[in-house]
């Protein structure tokens, strides 16, 4: 994902921690709005069985006599092509996209961080090899590489998660490498080396903790991007399969009936938009709050 750089922060007067945080939040209503919405989505995901009016409809239930009913008091979001309650499926969908995003980002960090640290700390040919491989991965727009991989793997949510994760780690490697290289060049790291402290200890105790802040910001910015990528692949038929209540898949399935039965497509799409928007607002606000000077663009 490409990200726009943020403006330089105006140096603020030093305040007690709680007060500074409070002021930061007050000055950034978008961050608060995004954060609250994201929390709400997670609550919906956890409480799905309690909130969904027809929990059975999240699965393979069919109701042949209730096919494609418009929104009503009983079915707020209408029913789909096999008579399932769209609201229940949208609610259960909150369990899928955010979970895919979390798994993708964890895998991307697990691959990306060690490689980035190794490249940045050791330099030399290790750096060359890792970064040239990274360059190749970054030569594909991430959706494209994920799509090519998902197209050759057996179609499932697991394949989709793997495909996206494979395209996501190089960004983190590049980011961490830059940080680690600048930390590794500082005098206190030289002192550590001079004291004979083993490399793995220097890395885990000093380099990693001092390189990781921008990564945290980037990960929070990427949740929305992964959700969009996953839903796009599901829309193309390369992810979840029916009866999984995946939002992208629901939009794809409703497409056929769209001109007459608009609700089947509209509500899952709004769910994708609101979720991606909430996490993007949250990530963008966090970046301004924590790390105002960084950008991924060269």
């Amino acid at each position, binding site marked *: 994902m490409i990200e726009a750089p943020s403006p330089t922060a105006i140096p603020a007067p030093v305040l007690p921690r709680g007060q500074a945080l409070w002021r930061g939040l007050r000055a950034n209503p978008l961050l608060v709005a995004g954060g609250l919405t994201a929390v709400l989505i997670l609550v919906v995901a956890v409480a799905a069985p309690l909130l969904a009016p027809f929990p059975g409809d999240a699965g393979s239930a069919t109701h042949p006599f209730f096919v494609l009913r418009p929104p009503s008091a009983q079915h707020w979001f209408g029913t789909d092509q096999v008579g399932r309650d769209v609201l229940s499926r949208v609610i259960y969908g909150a369990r899928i996209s955010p979970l895919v995003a979390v798994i993708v980002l964890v895998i991307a960090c697990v691959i990306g961080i060690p490689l980035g640290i190794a490249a940045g700390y050791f330099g030399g040919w290790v750096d060359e090899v890792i970064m040239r491989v990274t360059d190749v991965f970054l030569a594909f727009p991430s959706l494209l590489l994920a799509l090519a991989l998902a197209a*050759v793997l057996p179609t499932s949510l697991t394949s989709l998660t793997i495909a996206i994760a494979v395209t996501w780690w190089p960004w983190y490697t590049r980011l961490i490498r830059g940080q680690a290289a600048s930390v590794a060049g500082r005098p206190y790291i030289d002192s550590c080396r001079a004291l004979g402290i083993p490399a793995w200890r220097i890395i885990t105790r000093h380099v990693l903790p001092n390189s990781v802040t921008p990564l945290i910001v980037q990960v929070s910015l990427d949740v929305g991007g992964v959700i969009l990528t996953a839903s796009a692949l599901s829309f193309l038929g390369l992810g979840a399969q029916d009866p999984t209540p995946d939002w992208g898949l629901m939009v794809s399935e409703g497409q056929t009936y769209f001109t007459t039965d608009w609700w089947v497509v509209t509500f899952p799409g709004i769910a994708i938009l609101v979720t991606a928007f909430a996490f993007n607002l949250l990530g963008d606000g966090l970046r301004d709050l924590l790390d105002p000077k960084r950008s991924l663009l060269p």
Partner: protein
Amino acid sequence: MTGYVARRVALAALVVAGVIIATFVIARVVPGDPAATWAGPHASAAQVAAARRFLGLDRPPLVQLLAYFGGILSGNWGLSIHTHQPVLSDIGTAAPASLELVTAAMIIALAVAVPLGLVSARWPGGLVDQAIRAVSILGVSMPIFWMALILQLVFSQRLHVLPAAGEYSPGLLFSHPLAQRTGFSLIDATISGNWPMLGSILVHLVLPAVVVAAYPAGLIARMVRAQVLDTVSETHIQMIRALGFSERTVYSRFAMKLAWNPVAAAVALVFGYSLVNTFLVEAIFDWPGLGSYTAASIATLDTPAILGVTLFIALVYVAANLAVDIIQSVLDPRIRLR
């Protein structure tokens, strides 16, 4: 200067080699047997074996890789399973429509996003700034396949103001047939003076282009805001203010001038992203480009076609980045020293 360019070109060539190897590896990851797919569902063992020999799958992997390399470089990108045509010629037929669509989207995105970013940067922190920021984040949060369906429903099915699908009204094929010269329909219509056709293409282009523009517009607006804010605090802008230029001129002429460089780099990057986004949009609008071709390839599990498109877009992407790097180094000599 030549040294810098030579280094960048060498690096790009290395990346291209890596990209070709990557697509080869993906093709070999295919679970199941490409030879069986090729031979069809009712093929006998002998037919599958013949297909394997025909496709060269019986040779050692390294030989296959070299043959694959040779094929790519000599223009033999394999045969598409669903069109039975060479993949490269399919791409050649489909690419112009997608490039036109993405170019139109970029023009829309720049026309909308640059003024928004400037306004946002002029009164930072205000209500207008917050609103523009929210709208630009909304742009990058948009599931564009859904946006495409919604706009199609509203503007063509309900309001009947724009056509729902296609590249032009089919009736024009009889009254004003399009002369094929460059393959780019807009250019062909213009150079042959076919105005009714040009108008029809432009009208059909509006909805898909607006949808593809959503992501770049959001991105560019945020970039312009950030860059301009960075610039206006610099001393030479203070100088321009001191010379008595109006605030409007300070922003739109002087601050924006320095913002163009990174914005141009972002546009080149996002061009590649948008080419991929056409995969989600073209099939909905029946726009005859790479996106529709890829969607059909996915539906038919046409691996050679999917990988061909993947390779093509990756090459466009590498070339665009290289071009931007070189142009920037010409415009801004500081870059060469980094």
